[in-house]
């Protein structure tokens, strides 16, 4: 069975000459049928451009896009958006302001017979919990309801692929978690392949099967949320996902030598490296007489945990995430220990 979506080295440049920007740079990605994948990256990394290339609103400069095994872009092929069997949920929802909720949802169902259309609409209204609101006009709905109408409208024609562009960024924080869970459930129930663009890592990590991290136009890593956090493929991914400390060291195959001792390496590596230390893998122990001590510089107490920043004898800062039981006062002398094995990245410069 072909994958739900396949991107093969796609590139897109905007503008010409000096003003040109390479928005998408040789990005590749494969999404299984029925899978829910997040395209995660900071502002301006090219993720919305990638989505618009998949939807067909922009033409690829290079590379190829296949949806459900059908080539839709590349090799001088450009299938128009309306022929790609996609459903799109826009950041601004883009509901048709001149027609009702019902007409919005039925918009993509014009090829069905009247009875099929009624049945499908009812099914979608039930699925999205919009039953009873079908007579309203878009401006009469709350943000969360508009969001669900946008999703219902995209799902109704049973598309091969659903594309969601920052779908929760217009909702206020209180509503966001709830709507996010609802959308997750609806998409899961609909069993549609879905791509979801976001700059919010919490959103991405909590919602989807796999996350594709996009940085500077390229997809750096595609992995499950757990793997992405515990085994980032590059230093940039490690920096972008979660909090990270980096400690310089020298690797000798299985071991890495650094300021706080000799650590076990997770993978074979040699030469100068940056060791990734997640705050929760840093432990703080009582100072031992005769050894140079690290000192507490800054504390942030959250209740369920706390973040303690210490300065090592050489001046490097490390942040540790600890349980709430111990109190740390500034300038307290400490010893730093690390849970092994650790991940290290070759130092570039």
């Amino acid at each position, binding site marked *: 069975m072909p994958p739900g979506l396949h991107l093969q080295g796609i590139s897109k440049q905007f503008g010409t000459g000096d003003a040109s920007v390479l*928005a998408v740079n040789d990005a590749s990605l494969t999404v299984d049928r029925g899978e829910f994948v997040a395209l995660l990256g*900071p*502002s*301006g*990394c*090219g*993720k*919305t*451009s990638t989505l618009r290339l998949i*939807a*067909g*609103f*922009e033409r690829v400069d290079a590379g190829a896009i296949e949806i459900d095994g059908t080539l839709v872009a590349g090799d001088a092929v450009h299938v*128009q*958006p*309306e*022929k*790609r069997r*996609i*459903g*799109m949920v*826009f*950041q*601004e*929802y*883009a*509901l*048709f*302001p*001149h*027609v009702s909720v019902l007409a919005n949802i039925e*918009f*993509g169902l*014009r*090829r069905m017979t009247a009875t099929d259309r009624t049945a499908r609409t009812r099914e979608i209204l039930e699925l999205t919990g919009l039953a009873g609101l079908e007579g309203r*006009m*878009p*401006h009469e*709905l709350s*943000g969360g309801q*508009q969001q669900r109408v946008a999703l219902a*409208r*995209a799902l109704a*024609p049973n598309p091969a692929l659903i*594309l969601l562009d*920052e779908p929760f*960024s*217009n909702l*206020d*924080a209180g509503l*966001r978690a709830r709507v996010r869970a609802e959308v997750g459930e609806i998409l899961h129930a609909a069993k549609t392949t879905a791509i979801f663009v976001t*700059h*919010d890592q919490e959103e991405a990590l909590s919602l989807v099967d796999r996350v594709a991290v996009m940085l500077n136009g390229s997809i750096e890593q595609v992995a499950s949320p757990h793997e992405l956090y515990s085994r980032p493929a590059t230093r940039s991914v490690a920096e972008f996902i979660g909090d990270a400390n980096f400690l310089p060291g020298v690797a000798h195959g299985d071991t890495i030598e650094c300021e706080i001792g000799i650590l076990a390496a997770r993978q074979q590596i040699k030469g100068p490296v940056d060791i990734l230390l997640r705050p929760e893998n840093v432990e703080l122990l009582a100072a031992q007489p005769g050894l140079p001590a690290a000192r507490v510089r800054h504390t942030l107490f959250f209740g369920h945990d706390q973040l303690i920043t210490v300065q090592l004898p050489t001046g490097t800062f490390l942040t540790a995430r600890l349980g709430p039981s111990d109190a740390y006062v500034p300038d307290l002398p400490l010893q730093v220990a690390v849970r092994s094995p650790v991940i290290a990245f070759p130092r570039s410069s």
Partner: protein
Amino acid sequence: MSGESGSTEHPRRSIAFQVLRKAYSSGPLSREGDAARSTVQRYVGFFFRGLVLLIALAMLLPLAYLIFRAGGVGWTEVLGLLGRTRMLAIMWNSLILVCGVTTLSLLLALPFAWLTERTDLPGWRIWTVLAMMPLVIPSYVGGYTLIAMFGPRGVLQEFLSPLGVERLPSIYGFTGALWVLTLFTYPYIFMSIRAALHRFDPSVEEAARSLGYNGLQTFLRVTIPNLRPAITAGGLLVALYTLSDFGAVSLLRFNSFTRAIYVQYLSSFDRNVASLLSLALIVFTIILLLLERNSRGKGRPRYYRSSAGVAAPRKRIELARRKWLALAFCGAVVMAALVLPTGVILYWLLRGLASGESLAPVWAATLNSFRAGALAAIAAAILGLPVAYAAVRMGGRLMSFAARAVYLGYGLPGIVIALSLVFLGANFAPWLYQTLWMLVFAYVVRFLPQAMGAMQISLLQMNPRLEEAGRSLGLGNRAVFRRITAPIVRPGVLAGMALVFLTTVKELPATLLLSPTGFSTLATQIWSATDEAFFTRAAAPALVLLAMSAFSIFLVLMQEEKEVVSG
């Protein structure tokens, strides 16, 4: 990349802000303050409604006189007059002219606006300006250029006569009037559609594409329905303009209402007939206004964006090979509506200069036109804004009556307003008669709806939630108006003023009849010169008129640029 920064901070902050404000404002003292303030607000509201009503009544003055005049005519006399004046033929003429001009204007304006606003048409900025430029050519100048080009002893005839062509097909009558009025009024629809396209979120169209609709289907099913308020507003302007146009139809000898009225007034000295014809014309206007209201459906249109946030950056549709077809279309329109008319004017100007025409009277006329236009624009802004606000935001029959009353002024042909005011001035206000103020009043009665149209569009654009947000942050009615409504509406007001200035400078019939003695404007100079077939003498004022109007359009465009940059 667009709008990827989440707008999470602002709602949160404003909620905190409201909570704080509530905490500070609780207590008996501030509640007393609230009560006092609401009493003041009630008085302000009452005063405001009174003001709106007063403006509306002033605009109704010429109409009231007409009814008063016509009321003096007996029924048998009326029937006799109707028989003699061939009323049915005149009605039919006006009807087909209005329908023809509005339809043709839409057929020109809609593709033109779409091409310049939504596609990668080469030089779309320049085409946008060129598309609006024909507004600077008054219909009587257009009629004059048509006659001077294709009429007997026109340019074409001069070129063809050596080839033995003695006679060209006549351009007088319906064809000529349709041609001239379409070419010089379509920019009204163009501008209104363009503004609406500019506001319309392109991702709504992309949504339709993703739902299986091709470009054309999307245009028909999504874009057009959303442009309907703009098309109706622009179409109504064109229809009303056509109905009340005097210059083109009389020059081209097409017997629609305005020409018939003028002919009656000149030939029979019986103002009762002119009044009756005018009343029939007003009935037509009322029908148009009712059509407009019905097309809007129940309630007011609420087509402003349904969600908060910034629109995605616009991606222009690639025309590819269709580019040439698009360029040919735009080129043909601009050629017919702009290049040919100016070319003909320049031709006659050069011929005039060669034969030693003096340019001194043109300067004095320019100053006079400028003064009258500026005064009318200022007056229209002052009087139009309260009525526009009341029409869009305040409920009640009285306020909607006020808006309709103001719109009625546009249906009153200038010649009728002028006659009405001549009589009123001579009989009831001799101190006002034959002054510039009387003339400005006539202009305002005629052109206030233009200012109001622009203002209403920008008021409709303003989401009422914005005002409510201001109120919730502790601003009073007046503070909300000053700090929120006014800055958002200002571009609309300026656009409205520019439009009033433009049309005032071009205005002919009221200027002709109401100008103080010796007060010669560009329009009256062109008219009298054309009337006496001195084509060379009409050329210089026509050119100055063109330049002034062009500057006015430039101002409107600059304002829009500013909006785009700051928005």
